[in-house]
């Protein structure tokens, strides 16, 4: 079996990378080494950045500058679909997680996360890889 095309990093995975958790760091390392796309939903990026101090914001910039990193914007049409995910799960306040779940489903990629509970509640059909 060949490598996957990419993975989605949710807010918790971004924070895990910034805080230096080695499993997250290793995923990023091997993704770069093998040319595997790291998809960062724009709302997850905002969510993570809002929780970081200035020095840590520089670390997330390193991640964003990697040649394999792609920021998934939230367009007008996608907003409606993400909203449907949130509404169906009864979690209208979970925008970043809903965007990550929808992005994973839409791109057929797994989500890397430290906290799979919310993602499972939002989209039971997506593949979730929990960081140890």
């Amino acid at each position: 079996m060949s490598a996957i095309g990419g993975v989605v990093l949710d807010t918790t995975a971004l924070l895990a990378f910034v805080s230096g958790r080695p499993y997250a760091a290793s995923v990023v390392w091997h993704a770069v080494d093998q040319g595997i796309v790291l998809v960062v939903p724009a709302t997850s990026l905002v969510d993570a950045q809002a929780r970081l101090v200035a020095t840590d914001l520089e670390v997330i910039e390193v991640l964003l500058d990697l040649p394999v990193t792609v920021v998934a914007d939230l367009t007008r049409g996608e907003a409606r679909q993400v909203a449907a995910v949130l509404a169906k799960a009864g979690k209208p306040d979970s925008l970043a997680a809903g965007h990550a779940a929808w992005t994973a489903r839409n791109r057929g990629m797994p989500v890397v996360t430290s906290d799979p509970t919310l993602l499972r509640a939002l989209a039971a059909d997506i593949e979730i890889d929990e960081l140890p």
Partner: protein
Amino acid sequence: MRTTERVTVTLPIEQAERLRRMAGEGGAASISAYVSKAVRDQLDKDAALDVLKRLYADRGVTLEADHHAWARRLLRLDGSDPQAHAS
């Protein structure tokens, strides 16, 4: 002002034949473009890994064998079944 430089490289015959096939009908210009892109991609990757190496060293991040193995499984780089380690 000149922006390109002619460089002579030596390749195994099998690689040179594959390169000619992949570059198609465009001749030397296509081969140059193909090789230039490959070199650029490799340079970008090596630069990115160097940045990560320095970042991890600065922040005291040490990657052990089990971290590498876990990440390689997650990214299906070990030929594993995707469902075998799904949460």
